[in-house]
């Protein structure tokens, strides 16, 4: 009984933390000035956010065998998100996109 | 709840379709088309068509986008006029 309540608290906590991360990532994606900072915000916060939301959902209502799918999905998101951001930032670098600096007041 | 989800998804679908039409940069248009396909895939999963959703996710967002990008790399990147 107590274990169930604890599990529920952990699950809801994970989901709340994940949503907070996702919100921060989305704000960063909209507000940051250039492609590198945006990739930074999107990859870090979205993998942390989606990963912990998925883990929280897996723990919600107890952990059943079918919830392994959600854990696998969380691993997939955590692996593929940063890789995508890396590829994007690398492509931007190679095509000569310069990083934002304070003197320029925004990207060209 | 389901009605709200449906309405938001359909509005998002129409908005992405219009941004595909408005994009001058062809690569941006193709990326937006991939986003459109993924939203459509969510709508179909929600409407009890998981088979169609899987195929659309792999074909519409994956294969079609890659084919478009290959052709753009061979031709011109941005639309004139």
């Amino acid at each position, binding site marked *: 009984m107590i274990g169930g309540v604890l599990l529920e608290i952990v699950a809801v906590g994970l989901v709340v933390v994940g949503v907070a991360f996702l919100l921060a990532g989305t704000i960063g994606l909209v507000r940051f000035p250039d492609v590198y900072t945006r990739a930074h915000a999107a990859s870090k916060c979205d993998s942390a956010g989606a990963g912990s939301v998925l883990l929280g959902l897996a723990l919600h209502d107890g952990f059943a065998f079918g919830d392994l799918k959600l854990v696998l999905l969380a691993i997939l998101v955590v692996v593929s998100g940063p*890789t995508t951001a890396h*590829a994007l930032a690398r492509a931007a670098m190679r095509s000569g996109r310069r990083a934002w600096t304070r003197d320029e007041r925004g990207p060209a | 709840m389901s009605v709200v989800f449906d309405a938001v998804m359909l509005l998002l679908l129409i908005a992405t379709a219009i941004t595909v039409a408005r994009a001058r940069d062809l690569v941006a248009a193709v990326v937006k088309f991939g986003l459109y396909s993924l939203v459509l895939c969510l709508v179909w999963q929600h409407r009890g068509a998981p*088979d169609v*959703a899987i195929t659309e996710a792999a*074909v519409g967002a994956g*294969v079609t986008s*890659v*084919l478009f990008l*290959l052709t753009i790399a*061979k031709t011109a990147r941005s639309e004139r006029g």
Partner: protein
Amino acid sequence: MRTFALALVLVVAATMVIGIAGLPPHGDPDGPVHTHVGARYLEQGVAETGLRNLVTAVLLVYRGFDTFLEVVVIFTALVAVLALPSATRQPPPPRGEGAAASRREADDAVPVSPVVFLVVRLLAPFIAVFALASLYRGHVTPGGGFQSAAIIGAMMIALGLVFGREHAARLVPHGAKAWLQALGPLVFAAVAFVGWRLTGAFLGFPADEAAYALREAMVVVLEVAIAVGGAVILAQLFMALDAPS
């Protein structure tokens, strides 16, 4: 041009709005979609075909002829793309003095990040397992021949993008390439002929209880042929469009 397009779109939209005004509301259990042949498939499909995923049942057993022609269509599309001159023309391989330099140049042109290389190589087997699982369990879960063809095709394209043209070309064994491309239409025709000999109808499936195993085998052969043939055709379309023109 723009005003003409807007006028055309408005006319088409008005026509279609008039059209949908006369349609029965969707989602109604008593609508015509759900009361005619669809209802019969839902009630008797499992008993008649032995397939629990009724989408697969409709695709292969009830509407097999459509699917046959559709497989022929994608094969024809591949033939059409391959018939264009640039798809088959290969650049001559660099020889002698400049070979090493030009190969290095080609390497520099599209370098693949080691991180992306590693992650795609790690994920590819999992994608392949997912595709095979959706094929193997396609009769009880969402999935089946076309779905796994799309997934395997997408995986082959991802591998081709990361490993480069030469390695990607080796994914499809050279000697078997022609047969694999035509696998869908060929196997469909063969199964249709077997069905004709057994039941007297082209693409017929034996319906009696005794032929359960045979019917199952026909469906499995068709699914595998669609999955393999479709994936090879998708990968070949990618290779053809990727070829330098």
